[in-house]
């Protein structure tokens, strides 16, 4: 018996199920089989779906791909793609949940540092593709009254990420991409934690280590903590040097003035 013609909505959702969940119950009855079964025909699209997205993940996670090998990477990617298919047609944005997925991916559980390397790679990918933005002109800060300056909350350049990691993911990442086996075997994977800043410079993406105190100060600024309060929290080191470096490097693009007065102790 002929299946009743589906609505376009039913058919498009059914094709989604065929591609994402390999479930052809809603599609096969509607596909002309002439010489090839509906499943064989749907496989052509399933293959493209899986290979395009696996390639997108491999491009965003190149060190991960080398670290675990192509076969393991593909296995992890296939499971991830099924559970987290993309929400946007912009594939540069695809895969930000991959590090969290790896934390719970049983076959990877013996490599405790793997999710940290993945998080670092995502910050690099984000830095590569983040929108362009003009750096903040420091003269605008100079022009403020001192009381106003205390209330400044900075807006971060979209390419900048701050990461705190239990494992030295930066060393692992660099050694893997450089294919430097000697450096890789010299790394103590437990020699953490590390405090990192990832950003896009005109010359490319940089990952740099920071001291814990500089990182905490920067992190407070990134979260919008008013300048005076953040400086006050960081009295144990010269935070103004760190601030000057951020401004010179163009890591802030704007600021607003917090309404609430800052309480000094």
């Amino acid at each position: 018996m002929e299946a009743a013609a589906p609505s376009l909505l039913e058919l498009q959702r059914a094709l989604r199920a065929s591609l994402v969940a390999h479930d052809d119950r809603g599609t096969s009855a509607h596909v002309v089989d002439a010489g090839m079964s509906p499943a064989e025909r749907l496989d052509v699209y399933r293959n493209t779906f899986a290979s395009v997205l696996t390639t997108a993940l491999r491009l965003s996670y190149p060190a991960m791909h080398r670290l675990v090998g192509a076969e393991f990477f593909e296995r992890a990617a296939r499971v991830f793609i099924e559970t987290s298919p993309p929400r946007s047609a912009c594939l540069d944005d695809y895969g930000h949940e991959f590090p969290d997925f790896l934390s719970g991916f049983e076959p990877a559980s013996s490599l405790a540092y793997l999710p940290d390397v993945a998080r670092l790679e995502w910050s690099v990918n984000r830095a590569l593709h983040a929108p362009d933005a003009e750096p903040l002109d420091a003269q605008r800060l100079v022009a403020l009254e001192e009381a106003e300056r205390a209330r400044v909350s900075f807006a971060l350049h979209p390419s900048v990420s701050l990461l705190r990691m239990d494992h030295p993911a930066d060393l692992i990442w660099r050694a893997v991409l450089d294919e430097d086996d000697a450096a890789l075997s010299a790394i103590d994977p437990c020699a953490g934690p590390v405090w990192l800043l990832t950003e896009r410079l005109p010359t490319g993406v940089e990952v740099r280590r920071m001291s814990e105190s500089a990182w905490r100060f920067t992190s407070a600024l990134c979260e919008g903590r008013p300048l005076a309060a953040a400086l006050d929290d960081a009295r144990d080191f010269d935070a103004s040097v760190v601030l000057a470096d951020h401004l010179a490097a163009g890591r802030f693009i704007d600021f607003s003035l917090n309404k609430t007065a800052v309480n000094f102790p």
Partner: protein
Amino acid sequence: MDSLGRARDSIPAKAGVGLRFRHHQEVLESHPAAAWFEVHTENYMGGGSAPAHLDAIRRDYPLSLHGTGLSLGSVEGLDPAHLARVQNLVERIEPGLVSEHLSFSVAAGNYLADLLPLPMTEEALEIVCRNVAQVQDHLKRRILVENPSTYLQFRHSTIPEWEFLTQVAKRTGCGILCDVNNIYVSACNHGWDASEYLAALQPKAVGEIHLAGHVVRRLDGGRVLRIDDHGSRVAPEVWALYAEALARFGPVPTLIEWDTDVPPMAVLLEEAAHAAVLIEKAESGSCRALAA
């Protein structure tokens, strides 16, 4: 020449080349003699070096933006965030042509990373026309819609693809991006007559032609499926069909596409030179005689 110093804006009726990342540096440094370039819209939606390179290339070459993510056939409507990203790039690049596909890629909020076939029904025709009109209103310009290669057909389809495409152009005022390789691939896969397909398209609606290589996959029992993988030179049968297309449509901007194992620029320019010879023949009217 406009205020930005751009020498050429519209896409000439010549043979251009699909530009991929591996050739950015070469194009910027050695200015190969390509008549024009086309890029994938979705590859330039962020910031950083890729769109900066494109800005620089745009100063020296006519440029066309070819999208794969708008999902013109989605019954659930266009993704406004994606349409806004396309609009931003169109405003930044001011391309000579903007094109998309007669297919869908988004369902239930998921991007399905392929150009999926639509049922050729009145309902789908209305949806595609609605979405194309929305894109054109939003971008304030005409777009071209490309026929995809397909590997399956739906039982409840009632309209031949060539009629469907013609109707979309007629109802929305959009142009047609006639992918000659896709016509050949789909015609072989479904037993259509490729010449009949070409003959059904209105010459004045055809704004661009695509050419690419495809792969012949041999299945058990001697069965064959042609797959449009853009990974080789244009097949001889597709060149012949292209000559037929030029005879019908006259000289049309023509693009060489290559996406899998992208070869050196010289190979792409050789393919473009071959297309250029056929365009010249079409200009002198001799193509009509060759195709007959």
